[in-house]
């Protein structure tokens, strides 16, 4: 086979330990534990302390939680995004193939963590909000389930989504000098679900107190949820470059330099270029 002739390459290989699941395991594990604890809190105090907005209990058990989480989320977002930006790679055109492949792995785990957080927010906690609303009377926009769904689970996935995008833009040549249409949709569209809460709450406050889930008032959430499909285009951009890197590092096949990719990222997802270096 021709491949056996390309065994010895001068390209440095990354250690196999660099492709560990550990960081995603810790991040997703922490999110799962956090989500379970939040569910326990909700079971303990939603019905017992969260049915009367004017009560002192409500103030301490739910509004206190709301203010605390908003502050924590703002600090976390600023800290994470700021750190990613401040530690950006300023010499991406000289990035080694091994380092680039390791960074794609890190990006994959970042995106995986984002998608878990998006699942928890847009699927689990959003339908849990339906459980709550169709069971009790609404007397405030900051009802217990909203304190968790809108103001906690949504910002968490936004933090991870934007964080992954900033990571890609600051550490990978493919995303350094151009905006990826599908990636921006993948992160930006679900992120817009959070601002859409403003419309939702105004509508429910002004003219629509009951909770018909299929009401047109909710369709903004629906439209922004469609952006999840853009993960398909995002992976279609990333996979050819990852394949090229693997082929280059392990089989010695030619590859576009980081400088070329930065100059013309579209060429790195060209199916013809990808086919030329396929396994």
């Amino acid at each position, binding site marked *: 086979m021709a491949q056996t002739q390309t065994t010895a390459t001068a390209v440095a290989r990354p250690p196999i330990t660099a492709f560990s699941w550990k960081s995603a395991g810790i991040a997703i594990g922490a999110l799962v534990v956090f989500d379970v604890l939040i569910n326990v809190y*909700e079971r303990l105090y939603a019905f017992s302390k969260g049915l009367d907005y004017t009560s002192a209990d409500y103030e301490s058990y739910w509004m206190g939680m709301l203010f605390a989480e908003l502050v924590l989320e703002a600090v976390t977002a600023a800290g994470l995004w700021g750190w990613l930006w401040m530690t950006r790679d300023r010499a991406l055109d000289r990035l080694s193939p091994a380092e680039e492949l390791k960074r794609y792995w890190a990006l994959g785990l970042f995106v*995986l963590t984002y998608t878990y957080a998006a699942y928890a927010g847009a699927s689990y906690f959003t*339908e849990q909000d339906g459980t709550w609303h169709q069971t009790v009377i609404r007397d405030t926009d900051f009802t217990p389930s909203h304190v968790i769904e809108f103001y906690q689970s949504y910002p968490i996935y936004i933090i991870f989504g934007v964080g992954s995008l900033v990571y890609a833009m600051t550490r990978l040549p493919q995303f350094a000098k151009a905006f990826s249409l*599908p990636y921006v949709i993948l992160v930006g569209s*679900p992120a817009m679900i959070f601002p859409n809460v403003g419309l939702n709450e105004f509508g429910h406050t002004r003219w629509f107190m009951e*909770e018909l889930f299929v009401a047109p008032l909710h369709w903004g959430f629906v439209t922004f949820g469609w952006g999840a499909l853009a993960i398909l285009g995002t992976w279609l951009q990333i996979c050819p470059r990852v394949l090229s890197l693997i082929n280059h590092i392990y089989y010695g096949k030619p590859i576009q330099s980081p400088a070329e990719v930065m100059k013309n990222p579209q060429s790195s997802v060209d199916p013809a270029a990808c086919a030329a270096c396929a396994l």
Partner: protein
Amino acid sequence: MQYSQVDAEARAIGRKFDLVVLLSTFLVLIAGFHVHQMLVAGDWSFWVDWKDRNWWPIVAPILEITFPAATQAVLWTKFRMPIGATFCCLGLLFGEWMNRYINFYGWTHYPLNMVFPETFIPAAVVLDIVLMLTGNWVVTALVGGELWGWLFYPTNWVMIAPYHLPVEYQGALMSLADVINYMYVRTSTPEYLRIVETGTMRSFAGGVTGVAAFFSAFVSVCMYVPWWLMGAYFFGSTKFFKTYEATPVEARQH
């Protein structure tokens, strides 16, 4: 030996990337598809008394062929994987059951037979098979879309049938599902009988389900086409836009 080690290492890393792609796609499609489904057809999905023979077979299929069509457009044309529809619908069912069991049943204590979700898996398998056999998305829209609409009610019938049995309750004729609805208080849930099943919907006896499925199949075909196109050319796009700084000076001047 050296080649084997290098090859094994490369393949192991490739498989890890495959797993990341699969898992992340599955999770985020649950998020997007579920939020879409619950806010365009969710009330029919939440409650057994909403699962009627007229509107449910229309609303649910035409609004849920969306994500399967878009996902098929990429998984089939780029990866030759005929699983796009099943992949989406499995994720949707997972997302629905997580909440129905943990929250509707475990938190607010409604019986599971009042809040179980519908299934699209049989219809999705058929949609994928039609695409795989024909290899043509237009034929899949025409044939698969029709089958998608037609199959929804029969494939859910086993679960629904017991609740459509007629009963006399306080002198009125209603279904078992209606009686369950009256037994469990849902303070802010709009009553189905009040807002949807009105007028001739109740009294126009005989054959309405077939007509509903026929209509549903027609609209499912119509929905499949734009969603396939959106999947292929928008959500599956690999377009990059250059930043202002990266745009050549000559181009900026024009």
